[in-house]
Protein backbone atom coordinates (compact mmCIF):
# COMPACT_ATOMS: atom_id res chain seq x y z
CA UNK A 1 0.00 0.00 0.00
CA UNK A 2 1.24 3.46 -0.87
CA UNK A 3 0.04 4.90 2.42
CA UNK A 4 2.34 2.70 4.48
CA UNK A 5 4.47 5.72 5.39
CA UNK A 6 1.51 7.03 7.43
CA UNK A 7 1.48 4.41 10.15
CA UNK A 8 4.87 5.20 11.63
CA UNK A 9 4.42 8.94 12.17
CA UNK A 10 0.82 8.54 13.34
CA UNK A 11 1.81 5.85 15.83
CA UNK A 12 4.59 8.07 17.13
CA UNK A 13 2.38 11.13 17.52
CA UNK A 14 -0.67 9.34 18.85
CA UNK A 15 -1.88 10.72 22.16
CA UNK A 16 -2.28 7.21 23.51
CA UNK A 17 0.22 4.65 24.64
CA UNK A 18 1.00 1.69 22.39
CA UNK A 19 3.01 -1.22 23.72
CA UNK A 20 3.63 -4.57 22.04
CA UNK A 21 4.96 -7.74 23.68
CA UNK A 22 5.66 -11.16 22.21
CA UNK A 23 4.37 -14.47 23.54
CA UNK A 24 7.06 -14.49 26.25
CA UNK A 25 5.79 -11.03 27.27
CA UNK A 26 9.06 -9.42 26.19
CA UNK A 27 8.88 -5.84 24.95
CA UNK A 28 8.85 -5.46 21.19
CA UNK A 29 7.64 -1.92 20.81
CA UNK A 30 6.74 1.23 22.77
CA UNK A 31 5.54 4.36 21.02
CA UNK A 32 6.79 7.86 21.85
CA UNK A 33 3.85 8.62 24.12
CA UNK A 34 4.81 5.75 26.42
CA UNK A 35 8.55 6.32 26.15
CA UNK A 36 8.16 9.97 27.12
CA UNK A 37 5.71 9.41 29.95
CA UNK A 38 7.69 6.60 31.49
CA UNK A 39 11.16 8.02 30.73
CA UNK A 40 12.18 4.78 29.06
CA UNK A 41 13.99 4.40 25.72
CA UNK A 42 12.80 1.62 23.43
CA UNK A 43 16.39 0.84 22.45
CA UNK A 44 17.26 0.22 26.12
CA UNK A 45 14.37 -2.09 26.90
CA UNK A 46 13.64 -3.95 23.67
CA UNK A 47 13.69 -7.69 24.33
CA UNK A 48 13.43 -7.27 28.09
CA UNK A 49 10.52 -8.67 30.07
CA UNK A 50 7.63 -6.26 30.48
CA UNK A 51 7.67 -6.89 34.23
CA UNK A 52 11.37 -6.16 34.48
CA UNK A 53 10.93 -2.74 32.88
CA UNK A 54 7.63 -1.73 34.47
CA UNK A 55 8.13 -3.18 37.91
CA UNK A 56 4.91 -1.98 39.52
CA UNK A 57 2.36 -3.42 37.07
CA UNK A 58 0.02 -6.04 38.61
CA UNK A 59 1.92 -9.01 37.20
CA UNK A 60 -0.37 -11.97 37.96
CA UNK A 61 -3.41 -10.10 36.74
CA UNK A 62 -1.74 -8.88 33.56
CA UNK A 63 -0.32 -12.32 32.77
CA UNK A 64 -3.81 -13.74 32.99
CA UNK A 65 -5.17 -11.03 30.69
CA UNK A 66 -2.40 -11.52 28.12
CA UNK A 67 -2.84 -15.30 28.26
CA UNK A 68 -6.52 -14.96 27.39
CA UNK A 69 -5.74 -12.60 24.50
CA UNK A 70 -3.10 -14.97 23.10
CA UNK A 71 -5.14 -18.13 23.58
CA UNK A 72 -8.55 -16.87 22.55
CA UNK A 73 -7.22 -14.40 19.96
CA UNK A 74 -9.79 -11.93 21.15
CA UNK A 75 -9.40 -8.56 22.83
CA UNK A 76 -9.45 -7.87 26.52
CA UNK A 77 -10.22 -4.63 28.32
CA UNK A 78 -9.55 -2.75 31.49
CA UNK A 79 -11.36 0.38 32.63
CA UNK A 80 -10.04 3.10 34.96
CA UNK A 81 -13.27 2.73 36.92
CA UNK A 82 -12.20 -0.69 38.10
CA UNK A 83 -8.42 -0.38 37.94
CA UNK A 84 -7.23 3.20 37.82
CA UNK A 85 -4.08 2.40 35.89
CA UNK A 86 -2.01 -0.52 34.67
CA UNK A 87 1.29 1.27 34.17
CA UNK A 88 1.98 4.11 36.61
CA UNK A 89 2.43 7.22 34.49
CA UNK A 90 2.29 10.90 35.31
CA UNK A 91 -0.47 12.76 33.51
CA UNK A 92 -0.57 16.14 31.87
CA UNK A 93 -2.89 17.93 34.27
CA UNK A 94 -0.87 17.72 37.46
CA UNK A 95 -2.21 21.01 38.79
CA UNK A 96 -5.92 20.69 38.24
CA UNK A 97 -6.31 17.05 39.11
CA UNK A 98 -6.38 15.44 42.51
CA UNK A 99 -5.05 12.17 41.16
CA UNK A 100 -1.35 11.66 40.97
CA UNK A 101 -1.30 9.13 38.14
CA UNK A 102 -2.91 8.93 34.75
CA UNK A 103 -6.26 7.14 34.83
CA UNK A 104 -6.22 4.63 31.98
CA UNK A 105 -8.63 2.84 29.72
CA UNK A 106 -6.74 -0.11 28.30
CA UNK A 107 -7.34 -2.47 25.42
CA UNK A 108 -5.31 -5.61 24.82
CA UNK A 109 -5.40 -6.78 21.22
CA UNK A 110 -4.10 -9.96 19.59
CA UNK A 111 -1.62 -9.34 16.75
CA UNK A 112 0.15 -11.63 14.29
CA UNK A 113 3.17 -10.74 12.19
CA UNK A 114 3.47 -11.94 8.54
CA UNK A 115 5.31 -15.05 9.77
CA UNK A 116 2.37 -15.94 12.01
CA UNK A 117 4.08 -15.16 15.32
CA UNK A 118 1.73 -13.95 18.02
CA UNK A 119 1.91 -10.70 19.94
CA UNK A 120 -0.24 -8.69 22.30
CA UNK A 121 -0.71 -4.98 21.79
CA UNK A 122 -1.57 -2.94 24.87
CA UNK A 123 -3.32 0.35 24.06
CA UNK A 124 -3.40 2.86 26.87
CA UNK A 125 -5.78 5.80 26.66
CA UNK A 126 -5.58 8.70 29.07
CA UNK A 127 -8.90 8.85 30.96
CA UNK A 128 -7.75 11.34 33.60
CA UNK A 129 -10.38 13.88 32.51
CA UNK A 130 -13.18 11.40 33.05
CA UNK A 131 -11.62 10.40 36.36
CA UNK A 132 -11.50 14.01 37.52
CA UNK A 133 -15.08 14.72 36.45
CA UNK A 134 -16.20 11.58 38.24
CA UNK A 135 -14.51 12.76 41.42
CA UNK A 136 -16.15 16.18 41.14
CA UNK A 137 -19.46 14.46 40.68
CA UNK A 138 -18.91 12.33 43.77
CA UNK A 139 -18.01 15.35 45.89
CA UNK A 140 -21.03 17.27 44.62
CA UNK A 141 -23.33 14.35 45.31
CA UNK A 142 -21.98 14.09 48.83
CA UNK A 143 -22.61 17.79 49.42
CA UNK A 144 -26.06 17.44 47.95
CA UNK A 145 -26.81 14.50 50.20
CA UNK A 146 -25.72 16.52 53.20
CA UNK A 147 -27.82 19.54 52.25
CA UNK A 148 -30.71 17.18 51.78
CA UNK A 149 -30.48 16.25 55.46
CA UNK A 150 -29.89 19.64 56.98
CA UNK A 151 -32.22 22.44 57.90
CA UNK A 152 -30.78 25.47 56.12
CA UNK A 153 -31.44 28.02 58.89
CA UNK A 154 -30.35 26.18 62.02
CA UNK A 155 -28.06 23.48 60.57
CA UNK A 156 -29.92 20.92 62.68
CA UNK A 157 -31.23 17.87 60.78
CA UNK A 158 -34.36 18.55 58.80
CA UNK A 159 -37.60 16.91 59.82
CA UNK A 160 -37.70 14.25 57.11
CA UNK A 161 -34.20 12.98 57.78
CA UNK A 162 -34.57 13.27 61.55
CA UNK A 163 -37.75 11.21 61.50
CA UNK A 164 -36.05 8.56 59.37
CA UNK A 165 -33.27 8.33 61.93
CA UNK A 166 -35.76 8.18 64.81
CA UNK A 167 -37.52 5.29 63.11
CA UNK A 168 -34.23 3.42 62.56
CA UNK A 169 -33.03 4.03 66.11
CA UNK A 170 -36.35 2.82 67.51
CA UNK A 171 -36.02 -0.39 65.49
CA UNK A 172 -32.42 -0.81 66.65
CA UNK A 173 -33.34 -0.21 70.30
CA UNK A 174 -36.13 -2.77 70.04
CA UNK A 175 -33.88 -5.36 68.40
CA UNK A 176 -31.03 -5.00 70.90
CA UNK A 177 -33.32 -4.24 73.84
CA UNK A 178 -31.57 -1.00 74.64
CA UNK A 179 -33.27 2.03 76.19
CA UNK A 180 -34.05 5.00 73.97
CA UNK A 181 -35.46 8.38 74.92
CA UNK A 182 -36.88 11.30 73.05
CA UNK A 183 -36.92 15.00 73.89
CA UNK A 184 -39.32 17.31 72.11
CA UNK A 185 -38.91 20.96 72.89
CA UNK A 186 -40.44 24.19 71.84
CA UNK A 187 -39.25 27.77 72.12
CA UNK A 188 -41.59 29.57 74.53
CA UNK A 189 -43.73 32.44 73.24
CA UNK A 190 -42.05 32.42 69.85
CA UNK A 191 -44.87 34.31 68.14
CA UNK A 192 -44.57 37.12 70.64
CA UNK A 193 -40.81 37.17 70.14
CA UNK A 194 -41.26 37.44 66.37
CA UNK A 195 -43.74 40.27 66.80
CA UNK A 196 -41.42 42.17 69.08
CA UNK A 197 -38.07 41.68 67.35
CA UNK A 198 -39.11 40.81 63.83
CA UNK A 199 -38.53 37.52 62.01
CA UNK A 200 -34.82 38.17 61.80
CA UNK A 201 -34.75 38.36 65.59
CA UNK A 202 -36.68 35.10 65.75
CA UNK A 203 -34.26 33.45 63.33
CA UNK A 204 -31.32 34.68 65.36
CA UNK A 205 -32.75 33.05 68.50
CA UNK A 206 -33.35 29.76 66.68
CA UNK A 207 -29.78 29.71 65.37
CA UNK A 208 -28.30 30.52 68.78
CA UNK A 209 -30.51 27.97 70.52
CA UNK A 210 -29.44 25.23 68.13
CA UNK A 211 -25.79 26.03 68.68
CA UNK A 212 -26.18 25.94 72.46
CA UNK A 213 -28.01 22.62 72.39
CA UNK A 214 -25.65 20.94 69.97
CA UNK A 215 -22.63 21.19 72.26
CA UNK A 216 -24.55 19.34 74.98
CA UNK A 217 -25.11 16.26 72.84
CA UNK A 218 -23.15 13.12 72.01
CA UNK A 219 -22.22 12.11 68.46
CA UNK A 220 -24.76 9.32 68.64
CA UNK A 221 -27.72 11.59 69.39
CA UNK A 222 -29.94 12.91 66.61
CA UNK A 223 -30.91 16.56 66.83
CA UNK A 224 -33.46 17.83 64.34
CA UNK A 225 -35.80 20.73 63.68
CA UNK A 226 -39.25 19.23 63.90
CA UNK A 227 -41.32 22.29 63.05
CA UNK A 228 -41.03 26.08 63.06
CA UNK A 229 -39.78 26.51 66.65
CA UNK A 230 -40.04 22.89 67.69
CA UNK A 231 -37.04 20.57 67.93
CA UNK A 232 -36.45 16.92 68.70
CA UNK A 233 -33.52 15.01 70.14
CA UNK A 234 -33.23 11.24 69.88
CA UNK A 235 -31.05 9.99 72.75
CA UNK A 236 -29.76 6.55 71.87
CA UNK A 237 -29.01 4.03 74.59
CA UNK A 238 -30.43 6.40 77.20
CA UNK A 239 -33.07 5.70 79.84
CA UNK A 240 -35.45 8.24 81.33
CA UNK A 241 -33.15 9.42 84.16
CA UNK A 242 -30.35 10.27 81.72
CA UNK A 243 -32.77 11.92 79.30
CA UNK A 244 -34.15 14.05 82.11
CA UNK A 245 -30.65 15.21 82.95
CA UNK A 246 -29.97 16.22 79.33
CA UNK A 247 -33.33 18.00 79.18
CA UNK A 248 -32.57 20.03 82.34
CA UNK A 249 -29.24 21.05 80.85
CA UNK A 250 -30.89 22.13 77.60
CA UNK A 251 -33.44 24.14 79.53
CA UNK A 252 -30.74 25.86 81.53
CA UNK A 253 -28.45 26.51 78.55
CA UNK A 254 -31.23 28.36 76.75
CA UNK A 255 -32.57 30.30 79.73
CA UNK A 256 -29.37 31.23 81.58
CA UNK A 257 -28.03 33.69 79.02
CA UNK A 258 -30.06 36.04 76.88
CA UNK A 259 -29.55 36.07 73.10
CA UNK A 260 -28.03 39.23 71.70
CA UNK A 261 -29.66 40.58 68.58
CA UNK A 262 -28.74 44.03 67.20
CA UNK A 263 -27.58 45.20 70.64
CA UNK A 264 -30.77 43.99 72.24
CA UNK A 265 -30.92 41.19 74.76
CA UNK A 266 -33.64 38.67 74.07
CA UNK A 267 -34.46 36.54 77.08
CA UNK A 268 -35.79 33.20 75.99
CA UNK A 269 -36.70 29.76 77.28
CA UNK A 270 -37.83 26.34 76.13
CA UNK A 271 -40.37 23.83 77.34
CA UNK A 272 -39.37 20.20 77.04
CA UNK A 273 -41.31 16.96 76.94
CA UNK A 274 -39.41 13.73 77.67
CA UNK A 275 -40.47 10.16 76.97
CA UNK A 276 -38.75 6.80 76.99
CA UNK A 277 -39.55 4.20 74.36
CA UNK A 278 -41.87 1.52 75.70
CA UNK A 279 -44.18 0.86 72.79
CA UNK A 280 -43.60 -2.11 70.50
CA UNK A 281 -44.40 -2.74 66.85
CA UNK A 282 -44.07 -0.85 63.59
CA UNK A 283 -45.62 2.37 64.83
CA UNK A 284 -43.60 2.59 68.05
CA UNK A 285 -41.78 5.72 66.87
CA UNK A 286 -45.09 7.50 66.29
CA UNK A 287 -46.34 6.51 69.74
CA UNK A 288 -43.09 7.83 71.23
CA UNK A 289 -43.47 11.17 69.46
CA UNK A 290 -47.07 11.36 70.69
CA UNK A 291 -45.98 10.73 74.30
CA UNK A 292 -43.19 13.31 74.21
CA UNK A 293 -45.64 15.76 72.64
CA UNK A 294 -48.13 15.27 75.48
CA UNK A 295 -45.34 15.86 78.02
CA UNK A 296 -44.31 18.97 76.09
CA UNK A 297 -47.87 20.23 76.20
CA UNK A 298 -47.96 19.70 79.95
CA UNK A 299 -44.70 21.62 80.35
CA UNK A 300 -46.30 24.53 78.51
CA UNK A 301 -49.44 24.30 80.62
CA UNK A 302 -47.48 24.16 83.86
CA UNK A 303 -45.88 27.52 83.14
CA UNK A 304 -43.14 26.93 80.50
CA UNK A 305 -39.33 26.97 80.88
CA UNK A 306 -39.43 23.52 82.40
CA UNK A 307 -39.05 19.82 81.73
CA UNK A 308 -41.95 17.40 82.04
CA UNK A 309 -41.67 13.64 81.77
CA UNK A 310 -44.46 11.73 80.08
CA UNK A 311 -46.44 9.65 82.57
CA UNK A 312 -48.40 6.67 81.39
CA UNK A 313 -51.71 7.99 82.68
CA UNK A 314 -51.75 10.86 80.22
CA UNK A 315 -53.29 9.65 77.04
CA UNK A 316 -54.93 12.66 75.50
CA UNK A 317 -54.40 16.32 74.96
CA UNK A 318 -56.35 18.93 76.76
CA UNK A 319 -57.04 22.15 74.95
CA UNK A 320 -53.65 23.25 73.68
CA UNK A 321 -52.59 26.65 75.02
CA UNK A 322 -49.33 28.17 73.84
Amino acid at each position, binding site marked *: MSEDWLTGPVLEQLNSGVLVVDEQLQLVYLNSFLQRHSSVQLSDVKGKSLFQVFTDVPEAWLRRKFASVLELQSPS*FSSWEQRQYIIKLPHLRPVTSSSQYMAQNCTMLPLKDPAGRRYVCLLIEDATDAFVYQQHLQTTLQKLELSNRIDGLTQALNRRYWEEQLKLEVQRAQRYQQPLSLLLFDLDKFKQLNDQYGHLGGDCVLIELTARVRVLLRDTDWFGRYGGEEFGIVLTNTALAGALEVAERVCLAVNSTAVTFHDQSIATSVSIGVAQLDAVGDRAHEVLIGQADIALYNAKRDGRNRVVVFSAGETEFLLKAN
Partner: protein
Amino acid sequence: MSTVFSEEQRDCLQELINVAMGLASDKLARFLNTFVHLQVPAIELVNSAQIPAQFEARYSNTEAALVSQGFLGNDGLRGEAIVLYQLDNAHRIAALLGYDTDSASELEMLTDISSILTTTFLNGLADQIDNSLSYSAPRVLSSRQNNVSEALQETAFHWELALKVDISYQLVDHSFNCDMLLLIPGEAVLNIQKILERILEEY
Protein backbone atom coordinates in the same frame (compact mmCIF):
# COMPACT_ATOMS: atom_id res chain seq x y z
CA MET B 1 -40.47 -9.84 13.67
CA SER B 2 -39.67 -13.19 12.10
CA THR B 3 -40.87 -11.76 8.81
CA VAL B 4 -37.72 -9.62 8.66
CA PHE B 5 -35.73 -12.63 7.50
CA SER B 6 -36.84 -15.20 4.97
CA GLU B 7 -36.86 -18.80 6.13
CA GLU B 8 -33.72 -19.50 4.09
CA GLN B 9 -31.94 -16.55 5.64
CA ARG B 10 -32.98 -17.64 9.08
CA ASP B 11 -31.63 -21.14 8.58
CA CYS B 12 -28.42 -19.70 7.25
CA LEU B 13 -28.06 -17.44 10.28
CA GLN B 14 -28.76 -20.31 12.65
CA GLU B 15 -26.09 -22.37 10.93
CA LEU B 16 -23.55 -19.54 11.17
CA ILE B 17 -24.32 -19.17 14.85
CA ASN B 18 -24.01 -22.90 15.45
CA VAL B 19 -20.58 -22.97 13.87
CA ALA B 20 -19.54 -19.83 15.76
CA MET B 21 -20.56 -21.50 19.00
CA GLY B 22 -18.57 -24.56 18.12
CA LEU B 23 -15.47 -22.46 17.47
CA ALA B 24 -16.02 -20.54 20.68
CA SER B 25 -16.41 -23.65 22.81
CA ASP B 26 -13.28 -25.16 21.31
CA LYS B 27 -11.28 -22.06 22.19
CA LEU B 28 -12.79 -21.81 25.65
CA ALA B 29 -12.07 -25.45 26.37
CA ARG B 30 -8.41 -25.02 25.52
CA PHE B 31 -8.17 -21.81 27.47
CA LEU B 32 -9.90 -23.16 30.57
CA ASN B 33 -8.28 -26.58 30.31
CA THR B 34 -11.59 -28.24 30.76
CA PHE B 35 -14.14 -29.82 28.54
CA VAL B 36 -16.74 -27.35 27.36
CA HIS B 37 -19.93 -28.58 25.88
CA LEU B 38 -22.15 -26.10 24.16
CA GLN B 39 -25.73 -26.87 23.37
CA VAL B 40 -27.03 -25.78 20.01
CA PRO B 41 -28.13 -22.27 20.75
CA ALA B 42 -31.73 -21.32 20.20
CA ILE B 43 -32.07 -18.12 18.27
CA GLU B 44 -35.08 -15.90 18.16
CA LEU B 45 -35.74 -12.56 16.62
CA VAL B 46 -37.62 -10.37 19.03
CA ASN B 47 -39.07 -6.93 19.03
CA SER B 48 -36.79 -4.98 21.32
CA ALA B 49 -39.78 -3.58 23.19
CA GLN B 50 -40.61 -7.09 24.38
CA ILE B 51 -37.17 -7.81 25.79
CA PRO B 52 -37.59 -6.51 29.34
CA ALA B 53 -40.72 -8.61 29.81
CA GLN B 54 -39.03 -11.70 28.38
CA PHE B 55 -36.18 -11.60 30.86
CA GLU B 56 -37.94 -10.23 33.87
CA ALA B 57 -39.29 -13.58 34.97
CA ARG B 58 -35.96 -15.36 34.68
CA TYR B 59 -33.83 -12.79 36.45
CA SER B 60 -36.14 -10.96 38.82
CA ASN B 61 -35.65 -13.22 41.82
CA THR B 62 -31.94 -13.67 41.51
CA GLU B 63 -28.84 -11.55 41.49
CA ALA B 64 -27.98 -11.11 37.87
CA ALA B 65 -25.40 -9.27 35.86
CA LEU B 66 -26.01 -7.44 32.63
CA VAL B 67 -22.98 -6.48 30.60
CA SER B 68 -22.94 -4.69 27.28
CA GLN B 69 -20.28 -4.54 24.60
CA GLY B 70 -20.53 -2.78 21.26
CA PHE B 71 -19.19 -4.40 18.09
CA LEU B 72 -18.36 -2.95 14.70
CA GLY B 73 -17.33 -4.74 11.52
CA ASN B 74 -17.08 -4.22 7.78
CA ASP B 75 -20.10 -4.10 5.43
CA GLY B 76 -22.15 -2.15 7.97
CA LEU B 77 -22.23 -4.94 10.51
CA ARG B 78 -22.69 -3.39 13.93
CA GLY B 79 -24.65 -3.65 17.13
CA GLU B 80 -24.47 -4.23 20.81
CA ALA B 81 -24.05 -7.59 22.50
CA ILE B 82 -25.61 -7.98 25.92
CA VAL B 83 -24.80 -10.91 28.14
CA LEU B 84 -27.09 -11.75 31.05
CA TYR B 85 -26.28 -14.27 33.70
CA GLN B 86 -26.78 -15.12 37.32
CA LEU B 87 -24.11 -13.94 39.70
CA ASP B 88 -23.65 -17.20 41.61
CA ASN B 89 -22.91 -18.76 38.24
CA ALA B 90 -20.31 -16.11 37.58
CA HIS B 91 -18.27 -16.97 40.65
CA ARG B 92 -17.81 -20.53 39.43
CA ILE B 93 -16.56 -19.37 36.04
CA ALA B 94 -14.35 -16.81 37.75
CA ALA B 95 -12.66 -19.55 39.72
CA LEU B 96 -11.93 -21.38 36.46
CA LEU B 97 -10.49 -18.22 34.98
CA GLY B 98 -8.05 -18.02 37.87
CA TYR B 99 -9.67 -15.20 39.77
CA ASP B 100 -9.41 -15.14 43.48
CA THR B 101 -11.83 -12.83 45.17
CA ASP B 102 -9.39 -10.31 46.58
CA SER B 103 -7.22 -9.54 43.56
CA ALA B 104 -9.97 -8.15 41.39
CA SER B 105 -13.21 -6.37 41.96
CA GLU B 106 -16.43 -8.10 41.11
CA LEU B 107 -17.14 -5.61 38.33
CA GLU B 108 -13.81 -6.35 36.74
CA MET B 109 -14.53 -10.06 36.91
CA LEU B 110 -17.97 -9.61 35.34
CA THR B 111 -16.66 -7.53 32.45
CA ASP B 112 -13.90 -10.06 31.81
CA ILE B 113 -16.26 -13.03 31.70
CA SER B 114 -18.71 -11.25 29.42
CA SER B 115 -16.01 -9.96 27.15
CA ILE B 116 -14.53 -13.44 26.73
CA LEU B 117 -17.92 -14.98 25.96
CA THR B 118 -18.93 -12.21 23.58
CA THR B 119 -15.72 -11.79 21.64
CA THR B 120 -14.94 -15.49 21.19
CA PHE B 121 -18.44 -16.08 19.87
CA LEU B 122 -18.63 -13.01 17.63
CA ASN B 123 -15.11 -13.53 16.28
CA GLY B 124 -16.23 -17.03 15.27
CA LEU B 125 -19.23 -15.53 13.53
CA ALA B 126 -17.13 -12.88 11.79
CA ASP B 127 -14.55 -15.43 10.59
CA GLN B 128 -17.18 -17.33 8.67
CA ILE B 129 -18.43 -14.33 6.78
CA ASP B 130 -14.94 -12.99 6.02
CA ASN B 131 -15.50 -10.11 8.31
CA SER B 132 -13.58 -8.87 11.31
CA LEU B 133 -14.91 -7.03 14.29
CA SER B 134 -13.64 -4.44 16.67
CA TYR B 135 -15.15 -4.06 20.10
CA SER B 136 -15.84 -1.33 22.57
CA ALA B 137 -14.89 -1.92 26.18
CA PRO B 138 -17.51 -3.95 28.05
CA ARG B 139 -19.72 -1.99 30.38
CA VAL B 140 -21.70 -3.35 33.32
CA LEU B 141 -25.26 -2.13 32.90
CA SER B 142 -26.48 -3.65 36.08
CA SER B 143 -25.23 -5.99 38.72
CA ARG B 144 -26.58 -6.92 42.13
CA GLN B 145 -27.92 -3.55 43.24
CA ASN B 146 -29.91 -2.61 40.18
CA ASN B 147 -33.02 -3.95 38.62
CA VAL B 148 -32.35 -6.02 35.51
CA SER B 149 -35.54 -5.23 33.68
CA GLU B 150 -35.12 -1.51 34.28
CA ALA B 151 -31.61 -1.63 32.88
CA LEU B 152 -32.86 -3.62 29.91
CA GLN B 153 -35.62 -1.17 29.32
CA GLU B 154 -33.20 1.72 29.18
CA THR B 155 -30.99 -0.08 26.70
CA ALA B 156 -33.26 -2.14 24.52
CA PHE B 157 -35.57 0.57 23.32
CA HIS B 158 -32.89 2.24 21.28
CA TRP B 159 -32.73 -0.68 18.91
CA GLU B 160 -35.16 -1.88 16.30
CA LEU B 161 -34.38 -5.54 16.27
CA ALA B 162 -32.91 -7.93 18.71
CA LEU B 163 -31.48 -11.33 18.02
CA LYS B 164 -31.84 -13.40 21.14
CA VAL B 165 -29.34 -16.22 21.44
CA ASP B 166 -29.84 -18.60 24.29
CA ILE B 167 -26.45 -19.99 25.23
CA SER B 168 -25.81 -22.74 27.63
CA TYR B 169 -22.25 -23.69 28.47
CA GLN B 170 -21.81 -27.02 30.13
CA LEU B 171 -18.46 -27.45 31.77
CA VAL B 172 -17.26 -30.73 33.21
CA ASP B 173 -18.05 -30.04 36.82
CA HIS B 174 -20.72 -27.43 36.51
CA SER B 175 -22.98 -25.68 34.11
CA PHE B 176 -22.95 -22.06 33.21
CA ASN B 177 -26.02 -20.61 31.66
CA CYS B 178 -26.28 -17.22 30.17
CA ASP B 179 -28.33 -15.36 27.64
CA MET B 180 -26.78 -13.35 24.92
CA LEU B 181 -28.71 -10.66 23.17
CA LEU B 182 -27.48 -9.16 19.96
CA LEU B 183 -29.15 -5.80 19.54
CA ILE B 184 -28.91 -4.59 15.99
CA PRO B 185 -30.07 -1.24 14.63
CA GLY B 186 -32.40 -1.11 11.63
CA GLU B 187 -29.94 -0.35 8.83
CA ALA B 188 -27.52 -2.98 10.13
CA VAL B 189 -30.31 -5.56 9.85
CA LEU B 190 -30.48 -4.79 6.13
CA ASN B 191 -26.72 -5.19 5.93
CA ILE B 192 -26.92 -8.57 7.64
CA GLN B 193 -29.56 -9.60 5.13
CA LYS B 194 -27.20 -8.63 2.30
CA ILE B 195 -24.43 -10.67 3.90
CA LEU B 196 -26.75 -13.68 4.26
CA GLU B 197 -27.92 -13.29 0.65
CA ARG B 198 -24.33 -13.31 -0.53
CA ILE B 199 -23.55 -16.48 1.42
CA LEU B 200 -26.69 -18.21 0.12
CA GLU B 201 -25.74 -17.34 -3.46
CA GLU B 202 -22.30 -18.86 -2.99
CA TYR B 203 -23.79 -22.25 -2.14
